[in-house]
């Protein structure tokens, strides 16, 4: 159809349209003349025209379109209604479109060529006149006939593109003029038809730009469903849309690699945007998932519910579940990474609910998936890393249900606390001694090379004034802690329980509350602490404070929990926290990257404002049951081990220097990598800036920018550990991922611990500030 292309170039169009000189009468006459010529051909050859006949027709139609467009635009420019275009009027009165359609259906193998012209015409007319032409029979009827004739046909890319463009126009039009939906919607006894929708479905999984436009149009149709129930019912019940989407997902998942063979970088823990683009099939899968997510956001609840159901029963349970439960470690790594990606992509609450149901409620041989995943933290390096990544994403959701199942279910009964402490779980640590305590847990070997000493409680925290990095700057940790806590607090406002150590739902609460009133803070304004319901009628509107009706949980008043019988026997912080702490205990034998993630995950948990969790992690005055792991205790032990080891090293100071440089260089490299990506678009939004960089680069070491752009200064210290003879790629790789000997590894642990302790201390301090702010409100 190349010859068509040459005709379809709108060479003349632009020139004509922009010319002001064209006489409207001449335009009209020319338009009529072209139509007459076309009619001649129609009348001469009523069936199966020749190549030349079609060429002639197409030519004429092209000219007519140009003139028509010009005429309409002219009307527009003179602020006249489109309908006053004489050419347009002629088009309608002569029923031109209908005649073209009829002829095209008899044009045999040239049908598509004429179809092309028609699609272009309709698209152009809609674009110019919006909904105005839809009320005209001579326009609407042939267009519907044309669309119906396209059903079930296979087209060339060009026609597909034109068709989808037209459908897009129509969908957008309907969004703004919902009343016209009836024109495209046919309801018979057992038969409902929404032609625009059914034409778009075949393109739903296409990867190219046509697929994208089709999905855009489908989303518009979905939004229509929210405005018009008939459309919603059609999509939900008469089209097999939801099934298609869910089965599509399953199909797309099944072609994903079962094992990720080419993970070279040691710190790879989740899919990056580059990975998504490079791994075969992953982009299509993610696109489809994002599409489902978008639908769930705009569609009618009826459709949304179907989507949730099919996602749950059609994809998660039958496909993803078994995938996660495969037997070899490599398979588990891949499946877990896919799970993490899905968790990050599916943001619409309804779909997220399905995900959570899948993780929390489905039974796989007596075990919940969540528990199975928790156990995998104890596995070998790669599986541990991806598992930690999944939990990082989960914790980041700020979802009460997840946190309940992971943490609060176990902490809430307060069995992990010594009896005396169960009475009072103060949310406030007024002098915040925990933070100072934390800072003293910093490995002492780290202070050797600077003139900084810990004297009692005096700690210097600007070790690195000369280095241009956030590293070592405590202030950065404070800012970061504040924003993390603030964000988390805001997100948790939708939660139902306060997890403050009080038993929110104890049946004794009525008895307790009466004694609580006397303890409740009462200023002069609180004189209305009577039951507001009773008194509402007696008081005038302006006398009733809206504050009385607010459901406030007072965290100040202590509650007595009287499950005295259940003592230390069931004391536990729950499997999740326990396993994390145990992994932390193995700090020195863990790989550096695992330590980065463990510390990161615990810090993120420590950002939660709920007193139960915050106190467990950061309040050193809290006395725990003997077999309940304590962060302070574990860090203390690590500090001691590290200091013991380092005191036996002769070049301790150099090792520490090296470790610090490593961390700084890594941070600089990641920042530059981020900047490099930001300057090269097609990348997704980068993660928020942390002073302490944990997330590593992508899976493979290729495509990393030149070394000079990675390091702002020459990495002189690291060169010494790299063998002289190696390929440039290897050199690059070894610079970013140097191999450490034992001494270097312990030094890295020391330095990492030092930074982490600052991070935790900053969190403890900022929690105090945040709570003071809430109290004073």
């Amino acid at each position, binding site marked *: 159809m190349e010859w068509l292309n040459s005709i379809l170039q709108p060479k003349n169009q632009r020139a004509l349209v922009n010319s002001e000189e064209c006489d409207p009468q001449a335009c009209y006459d020319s338009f009529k003349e072209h139509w007459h010529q076309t009619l001649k051909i129609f009348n001469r050859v009523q069936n199966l025209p020749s190549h030349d006949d079609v060429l002639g027709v197409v030519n004429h139609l092209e000219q007519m379109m140009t003139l028509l467009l010009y005429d309409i635009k002219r009307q527009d420019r003179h602020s006249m209604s489109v309908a006053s275009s004489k050419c347009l009027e002629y088009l309608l009165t002569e029923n031109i479109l209908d005649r073209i359609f009829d002829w095209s259906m008899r044009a045999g193998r040239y049908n598509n060529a004429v179809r092309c012209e028609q699609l272009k015409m309709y698209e152009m007319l809609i674009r110019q006149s919006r909904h105005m032409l839809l009320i005209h029979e001579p326009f609407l009827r042939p267009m519907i006939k044309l669309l119906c004739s396209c059903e079930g046909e296979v087209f060339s890319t060009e026609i597909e593109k034109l068709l989808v463009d037209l459908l897009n126009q129509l969908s957008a039009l309907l969004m703004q003029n919902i009343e016209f939906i009836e024109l495209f919607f046919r309801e018979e006894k057992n038969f409902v038809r929404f032609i625009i929708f059914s034409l778009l479905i075949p393109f739903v999984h296409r990867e190219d730009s046509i697929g994208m436009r089709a999905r855009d149009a489908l989303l518009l149709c979905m939004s229509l469903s929210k405005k018009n129930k008939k459309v919603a019912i059609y999509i939900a019940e008469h089209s097999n849309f939801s099934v298609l989407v869910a089965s599509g997902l399953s199909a797309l998942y099944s072609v994903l690699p079962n094992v990720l063979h080419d993970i070279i970088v040691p710190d790879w823990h989740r899919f990056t945007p580059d990975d998504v683009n490079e791994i075969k099939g992953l982009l299509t899968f993610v696109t489809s998932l994002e599409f489902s997510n978008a639908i769930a956001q705009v569609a009618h*609840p009826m459709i949304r519910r179907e989507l949730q159901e099919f996602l749950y029963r059609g994809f998660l349970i039958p496909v993803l579940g078994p995938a996660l439960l495969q037997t070899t470690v490599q398979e588990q790594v891949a499946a877990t990474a896919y799970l993490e990606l899905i968790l990050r992509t599916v943001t619409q609450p309804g779909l997220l609910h399905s995900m959570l149901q899948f993780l929390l409620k489905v039974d796989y041989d007596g075990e919940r998936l969540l528990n199975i995943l928790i156990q995998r933290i104890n596995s070998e390096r790669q599986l541990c890393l991806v598992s930690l990544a999944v939990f990082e994403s989960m914790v980041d959701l700020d*979802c*009460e249900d997840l946190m309940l199942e992971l943490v609060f279910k176990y902490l809430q009964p307060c069995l992990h606390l010594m009896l005396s402490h169960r009475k009072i779980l103060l949310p406030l640590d007024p002098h915040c001694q925990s933070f100072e305590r934390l800072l003293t847990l910093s490995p002492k070997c780290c202070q050797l090379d600077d003139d900084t000493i810990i004297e009692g409680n005096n700690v210097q925290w600007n070790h690195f004034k000369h280095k241009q990095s956030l590293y070592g700057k405590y202030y950065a940790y404070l800012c970061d802690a504040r924003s993390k806590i603030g964000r988390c607090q805001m997100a948790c406002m939708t939660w139902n329980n306060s997890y403050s150590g009080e038993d929110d739902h104890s049946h004794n609460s009525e008895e307790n509350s009466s004694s609580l009133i006397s303890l409740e803070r009462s200023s002069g304004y609180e004189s209305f602490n009577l039951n507001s319901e009773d008194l509402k009628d007696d008081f005038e509107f302006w*006398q009733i404070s809206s504050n009385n009706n607010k459901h406030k949980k007072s965290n100040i008043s202590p509650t007595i929990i009287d499950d005295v019988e259940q003592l230390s026997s069931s004391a536990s912080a729950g499997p999740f926290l326990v396993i994390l702490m145990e992994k932390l205990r193995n700090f020195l034998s863990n790989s550096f990257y695992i330590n980065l993630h463990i510390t990161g995950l615990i810090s993120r948990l420590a950002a939660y404002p709920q007193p139960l969790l915050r106190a467990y992690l950061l309040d050193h005055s809290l006395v725990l049951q003997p077999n309940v792991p304590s962060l302070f205790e574990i860090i203390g032990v690590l500090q001691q081990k590290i200091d013991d080891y380092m005191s036996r090293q002769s070049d301790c100071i150099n090792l520490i220097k090296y470790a610090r440089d490593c961390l700084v260089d890594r941070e600089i490299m990641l920042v530059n990598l981020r900047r490099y990506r930001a300057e090269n678009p097609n990348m997704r939004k980068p993660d928020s800036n942390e002073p302490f960089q944990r997330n590593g680069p992508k899976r493979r070491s290729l495509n990393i920018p030149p070394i000079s752009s990675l390091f702002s200064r020459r990495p002189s210290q690291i060169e010494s550990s790299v063998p002289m003879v190696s390929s440039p790629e290897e050199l690059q790789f070894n610079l970013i991922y140097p191999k450490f000997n034992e001494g270097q590894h312990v030094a890295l642990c020391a330095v990492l611990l030092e930074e982490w302790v600052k991070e935790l201390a900053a969190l403890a301090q900022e929690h105090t500030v945040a709570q003071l702010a809430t109290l004073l409100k």
Partner: protein
Amino acid sequence: MIQTENIHGVYVIPSNESSLIWFGVIFVRNGPYEDGIFRFTIVLDENFPDCEHPKVVFQSEMFHPVIDPVGNELNLLNAFPKWNKSEQHLWQVLKFIQWIFYNVDASVAHVVNTEAAEMYKSNKNAFKAKAQEIVNLSKDHLYDEPPTEDKHYIIFEPYVPEVHDKIRMSMITFQEEQTSKIGHSWVLPGTYKSLARPPTPQSESES
């Protein structure tokens, strides 16, 4: 306390010169006085709160059953016959001010402007017209020179796109950012049971 009461449309600020004088303005959003922007001043007695109710005087001409046509003072005696400092508070006065504009019907009970009250009862249309008149009056005087040099006097200026558009946009985007990071919870209220509520709120099922 006044802040936590969140009385919509009413803004007050103590004057710079004296904490016994407060400047206030109310934006009426509904009812016969819709679109009205009425300034008022609250005057507190020296011995406040050990005294009678504060005095509220409207700045421009008013036509309302509860506002004295001579002197524009709001009649608070009915609503606050006594001023007991442990039970009566300033925020209640503000709420009352808000109330009278949205509940003209009920406020007739506190009448001091009998003409207004009568018109309201017998000829609602005329009342509405008169109310609109004073609404327009208030708007006409919105940008007047301040009658006092007090630094806290509330001043309005016309909207200037070059100046104000940016701020408006940043307010809108701030609002969007705030709502972007929300947590989730399907825990049944009153329990520790996870995923006990339906995936999406029931209210959304009505379209």
